[in-house]
């Protein structure tokens, strides 16, 4: 080198070399050496840190890999810096989570992966300027969540300030995009799935990473899904700290290792029993145990879940050892799976066997067929690909910079996936599933002479329909028989297949009246899912010696299937699946009761069976004896010959009468009296009323008397039902007289006297309540709670504690009622924090007289006055913080300070001057004119007006302002014919500068205009304007 540089022909090189000193070289080399040292040390450090754990992620963090990752990050760092500079740390995008935590505490808990488990850090969430207290802790089951600079965490809010309506949320930094896409699909499959979203997280005003937010499953989750609080089982035995050492980890072989996220502690229905029974039946290995498994779940729901899992390519991750969440509905005792931690993978690369539960369910060819039918809807018209593309397009547009930044950190943080991964995998899986659905292979072989034996075996993923049997030249008088009992020979137990002879191109064919289904079976005994074999034997008589041909079509696609030859004499092996012919449908029966009946044991009527009770019948029930009907009940007495349900022992209550399930729909009861029941728990189903309707529609009680029930919470209980209770009488009831949970229908013209609790109690229900007389209720005359939206009109409520109470996100329209002599006539309040807000009453034209307090309102509740719009009419726009779009298409102007969806309305904050919010519209209003209804609230505003601008027309309507943060008003605007282009609301705030007493600082209060809803009536002439006309479907 000395010779090379020193002897160079170029003088400047010689001169440079002569002047160069050792110190210069050291200085020049310092940067690369330091960089190399840093890379080596940090890679070794990361490896050492990861080595503390022993899972898939830590094992993958070798020194060479971590070194390469950090080297890559070093190269991409300048670009990352540029992206980082583009982040708006003050963005009001509602998707962004601004987390503020004490840095040192955060580092104490999060920086050291080996400590801090379960330890909370106190922090704040900045929700557009409002600071809500939260607690944060690290989460996850493997080191991928703890050993990188992007740590997964759990956020828990206070009860008073939920975030996105949730109190507990998980934020996971791994496979964010692909996992989000997979889990977002659950919305399309009508499954009980937790809310999930993408959340860019800013930690102390610096971008921390793009995370997938996930609602944690608890009672709030159930309520959000319209489910009664019940037990949620959790099975997770995969990772250290979660599994039970020294015990079988297979959740479906060991019921003792399941845990409970929520527990419904019904007496006599211990939560452990349901899972123990399911596990026992799953391992029963017999057809009877398979049928019991079917009864414990909703097979169609399981089929939807399986179809979803196949589409996302990951039917294996909800496996025997983890990701198992199940909810037991106390109203049906049915277990519902909760999809958890779905991943988006290549379905063509199965890694393991399906879990024990799925294997058992897929032994049922009907479940397989439901799965294939659902899959066909999603893959044959590329619906799945289109949905995946739309999800990726949305998130690419909204989160481009965040995706870019985390993408640049690849290798240093957990992989996040890319939108293109989502699209690619959607295409790969769709293509593979299409090949499955096209595969309806059927083997066909024959034998015999007088009686022909026709043997079919399905060998594909999809089943086939036997549409015809070609009969050679001679039609004869053929009869086709199924080998129904599958004993191999034609005997009396075998069923004929009805059909007729048709001649096609001069050749006779036997064509069944309905195509004979040959359902496919799937073999799940090995890793992955393979087509199974399912044998169907038919006998053909009346055409001796004829050469037959089978005409088959694919049951999913309808394509013609050419059968493959099956050699006579080949052995027919047993199938993995249960045979469809084993499932015998029960014939519905009708039972009739009359005279005096004494029931000494609980009566259960099977699904579809009908019970008819004659007028004048008296049914006496022994203590705790119940009647559970899964079919319709017709108990129609007369005024002179009523039907009575009475206790056999006057000192002890009987149980409950229950109309259970959809097949009990259409039941009719009239002139019936129920006395002395006490509720019951039958077959793990909780009946909290003396009379109960669960999940049945179109049930009517007319002129029925309910009285003297004891023990039970309710006298009459409707759950997920459509029930009409009309012209009936409730007296001396133990708790609530009528309780509607998640139900609709009518409660009309009834009399309620001396209810031990509420007269009418609603939870998440919207019946039409009118013409009732409610007197002397111990608690509330009408209680409207938990997101109910009933129409309550023309009722009389007297001498009660509270006339009507409206709670917890309920928004009933209350008009034309008379409330007298109550301690409180109308109370609007928040009672249950899970709903985030209080009640919201729409009050109009009620008569309140001689009450202690007329209207009582807490600070979380609202009232809207003015004539409410028609019952059943659809709101055009309802504003609340939905995190999807900040402003719902509105644009602020003038002196507006901000415009944003907040909690329950779109809020315009106005500085002094005139603030505006404008929505572009395209309305063509013809004659007769339409009407616009807005639900508006105002605070610290002098003037508000509504301006409609169009081509050559301008309509400005001033609004009378109510300066109250808790009160709203319905504003009706008649809109004359014309074409309109924009709708503008203007707000002029009051000058409200004031000096704070404690600080002496001058504060300026912004005026606030709140828009809750908008409704457009295109034509007033069609009778829409009767504000309380109930929808036709609700009329009794």
């Amino acid at each position: 080198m000395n010779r090379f540089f020193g002897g160079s022909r170029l003088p400047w090189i010689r001169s440079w070399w002569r002047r160069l000193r050792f110190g210069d070289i050291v200085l020049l080399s310092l940067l690369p050496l330091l960089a190399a040292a840093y890379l080596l040390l940090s890679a070794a450090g990361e490896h050492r840190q990861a080595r503390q754990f022993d899972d898939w992620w830590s094992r993958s963090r070798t020194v060479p890999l971590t070194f390469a990752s950090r080297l890559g990050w070093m190269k991409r760092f300048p670009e990352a810096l540029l992206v980082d500079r583009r982040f708006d740390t003050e963005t009001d995008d509602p998707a962004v989570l601004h987390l503020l935590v004490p840095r040192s505490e955060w580092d104490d808990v999060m920086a050291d992966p080996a400590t801090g488990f379960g330890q909370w850090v106190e922090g704040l969430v900045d929700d557009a300027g409002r600071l809500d207290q939260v607690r944060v802790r690290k989460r996850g089951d493997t080191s991928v969540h703890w050993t990188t600079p992007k740590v997964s965490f759990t956020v828990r809010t206070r009860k008073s300030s939920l975030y996105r309506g949730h109190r507990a949320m998980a934020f996971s930094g791994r496979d964010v995009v692909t996992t989000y896409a997979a889990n977002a699909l659950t919305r399309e499959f009508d499954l009980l799935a937790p809310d999930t979203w993408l959340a860019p997280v800013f930690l102390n005003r610096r971008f921390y990473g793009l995370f997938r937010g996930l609602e944690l499953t608890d009672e709030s989750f159930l309520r959000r899904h319209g489910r009664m609080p019940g037990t949620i089982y959790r099975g997770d035995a995969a990772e250290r700290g979660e599994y039970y050492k020294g015990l079988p980890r297979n959740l479906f072989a060991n019921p003792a290792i399941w845990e409970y996220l929520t527990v419904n502690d019904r007496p006599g229905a211990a939560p452990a029993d349901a899972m123990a029974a399911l596990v026992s039946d799953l391992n029963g290995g017999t057809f009877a145990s398979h049928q019991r498994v079917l009864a414990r779940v909703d097979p169609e729901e399981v089929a939807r879940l399986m179809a979803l899992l196949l589409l996302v390519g990951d039917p294996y991750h909800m496996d025997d050892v983890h990701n198992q969440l199940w909810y037991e509905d106390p109203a049906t005792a049915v277990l519902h799976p909760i999809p958890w931690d779905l991943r988006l993978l290549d379905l063509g690369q199965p890694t393991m066997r399906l879990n024990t539960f799925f294997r058992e369910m897929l032994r049922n060819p009907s479940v397989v067929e439901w799965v294939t039918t659902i899959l066909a809807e999603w893959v044959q018209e590329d619906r799945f690909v289109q949905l995946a593309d739309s999800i990726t397009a949305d998130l690419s547009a909204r989160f481009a910079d965040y995706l870019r930044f985390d993408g640049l950190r690849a290798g240093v943080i957990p992989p996040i996936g890319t939108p293109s991964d989502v699209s690619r995998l959607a295409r790969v899986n769709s293509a593979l599933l299409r090949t499955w659905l096209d595969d309806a292979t059927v083997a066909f072989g024959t034998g015999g002479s007088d009686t022909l034996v026709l043997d079919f075996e399905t060998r594909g993923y999809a089943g086939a329909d036997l549409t015809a049997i070609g009969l050679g030249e001679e039609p004869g008088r053929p009869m086709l028989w199924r080998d129904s009992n599958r004993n191999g020979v034609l005997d009396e137990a075998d069923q004929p297949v009805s059909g007729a002879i048709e001649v096609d191109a001069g050749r006779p064919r036997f064509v069944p009246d309905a195509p004979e289904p040959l359902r496919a079976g799937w073999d799940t005994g090995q890793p992955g899912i393979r087509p199974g074999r399912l044998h169907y034997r038919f006998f053909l008589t009346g055409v001796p010696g004829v050469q037959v041909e089978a005409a088959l079509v694919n049951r999913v696609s309808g394509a013609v299937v050419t059968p493959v030859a099956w050699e006579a004499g080949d052995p027919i092996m047993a199938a993995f699946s249960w045979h469809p012919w084993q499932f015998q449908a029960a014939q519905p029966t009708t039972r009739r009761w009359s005279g005096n009946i004494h029931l000494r044991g609980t009566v259960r009527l099977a699904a579809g069976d009908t019970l008819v009770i004659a007028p004048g019948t008296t049914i006496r029930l022994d203590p705790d004896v119940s009647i559970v009907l899964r079919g319709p009940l017709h108990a129609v007495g007369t005024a002179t010959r009523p039907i009575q349900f009475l206790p056999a022992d006057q000192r002890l209550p009987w149980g409950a009468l229950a109309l259970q399930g959809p097949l009990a729909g259409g039941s009719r009861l009239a002139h019936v009296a129920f006395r002395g029941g006490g509720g019951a728990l039958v077959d793990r189903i909780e009946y909290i009323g003396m009379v109960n309707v669960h999940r049945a529609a179109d049930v009517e009680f007319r002129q029925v008397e309910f009285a003297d029930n004891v023990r039970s919470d309710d006298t009459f209980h409707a759950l997920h039902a459509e029930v009409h209770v009309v012209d009936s009488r409730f007296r001396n009831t133990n708790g609530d007289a009528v309780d509607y949970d998640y139900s609709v229908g009518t409660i009309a013209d009834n009399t309620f006297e001396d209810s031990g609790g509420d007269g009418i109690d609603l939870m998440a229900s919207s019946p039409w309540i009118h013409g009732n007389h409610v007197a002397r209720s111990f608690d509330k005359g009408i209680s409207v709670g938990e997101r109910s939206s009933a129409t309550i009109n023309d009722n009389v409520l007297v001498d009660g504690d509270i006339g009507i109470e409206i709670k917890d996100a309920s928004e009933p329209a209350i008009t034309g009622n008379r409330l007298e002599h109550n301690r409180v006539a109308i109370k609007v309040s928040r009672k249950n924090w899970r709903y985030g807000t209080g009640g919201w009453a729409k009050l109009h034209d009620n008569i309140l007289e001689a009450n202690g307090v007329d209207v009582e309102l807490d600070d979380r509740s609202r009232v809207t006055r003015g004539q409410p719009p028609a019952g059943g009419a659809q709101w055009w726009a309802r504003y609340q913080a939905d995190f999807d779009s900040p402003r719902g298409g509105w644009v602020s102007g003038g002196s507006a300070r901000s415009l944003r969806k907040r909690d329950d309305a779109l809020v315009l904050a106005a500085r002094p001057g005139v603030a505006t919010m404008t929505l572009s519209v395209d309305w063509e209003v013809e004659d007769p004119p339409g009407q616009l209804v807005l639900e508006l609230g105002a605070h610290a505003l002098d003037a508000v007006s509504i301006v409609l601008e169009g081509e050559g027309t301008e309509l400005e309507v001033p609004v009378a302002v109510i300066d109250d943060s808790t009160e709203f008003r319905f504003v009706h605007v008649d809109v004359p014919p014309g074409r309109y282009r924009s709708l503008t609301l203007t707000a002029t705030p009051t000058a409200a500068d004031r000096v704070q007493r404690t600080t002496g600082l001058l504060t300026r209060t912004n005026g606030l205009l709140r828009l809750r809803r908008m409704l457009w009536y295109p034509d007033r002439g069609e009778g829409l304007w009767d504000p309380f006309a109930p929808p036709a479907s609700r009329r009794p």
Partner: protein
Amino acid sequence: MAADWQGRLRTAFRRHERRLMVVYALVVAAVVAIVGVPRLRSPVLTTVQQMFDRADRRWDSRLRHGEALVAEGRFEEAATYLVNLDSIFPARTVHAGRDRERERLLMALALSYERLGRNGRALDTYRRLTAFDPRNWRSHFALAQAVERLEGGWATPDEAAAAYRAVLAMHPNHLPSVRGLMQYAIDGGRFDEAMMVWDAYLDDVMLQLLYIYAGDAVHEVNVRVDGRPQEVVLPVRMPPGDGHVQIHTGGFSLKVHEAIVVTPQAVGSATPTDTVPLAVLRHWSAGTTDADGVLRADAPASVVTLAAPELPSGATALRLRITAFKPLDRDTWSLAERSYRNLLRLEERDAVTTRLLVHPDRALVDSLDAIPG
């Protein structure tokens, strides 16, 4: 003298400065090459990693050394050594990769304390063991046993009973804990409580994995171990010829009430499905057979062999009617019997005996845990 050396060094440095620069530059170039060229980098970094891994493995050898000290009865030395190891052991949480090693460490330390007569410290160490991973039933059981040993007088201490309950909450079929808790209840004259423990043991779902060899395949079947007859229907593919079926019971006692194979139908042939009964041919390995055909298993390797005389067309399904019995020893049964007697539930006692198979060897029965997790 020193100045002289410095002067000489300076002179030597100046004389060789160019060479040093060249050597230094080459070293830097080598480092940069190693960093930049993956082919060169990989072996170097792998060597670095191996160094780390070697250093990591020393924890295993140190732990083994501590355990060896305990095994040799050098408890004082073991305690000192293990206390030190405990303070520097890397697994601080159950999520860590060496969680089982830490549990072994604590167990050895507790044992050392116990043998040294430092009972308080021993129990504290057992409690630390249960706190480290509350989901390890063996830790709770060790605590229960230690409390009984160290604090037990004429009756079972409350803390031992609590630990037994903790075991049964996650492992309801752990017979020694059932026995311990029943004893605790009976010591206090609470026979109804003892019966609740006994009833729970009898009725809790317990499944045992049987390996059934039929044809050329092994079938894994979970059967209920509850002393009640149950059906097992298994699709099998047995070729024509010898019809042997083996059932590996995993050490559980078993009664085969009925065993039949179903012969296959043939394509195009209207011959009825046939069934062929299998006979219990012999019990292999450890096990004795009662007069009524019950295999009383004596070891986890117990096997039942069933056979048909001949299967000319093979078999397509296997149907079994069997009863698997929960492990039960004489001591536990005598506790249960005593409770039945004291509560005057003699009819129930008589009825339940049909579900039981009392084994004389308590140690063997206690060893029949569930399948290792």
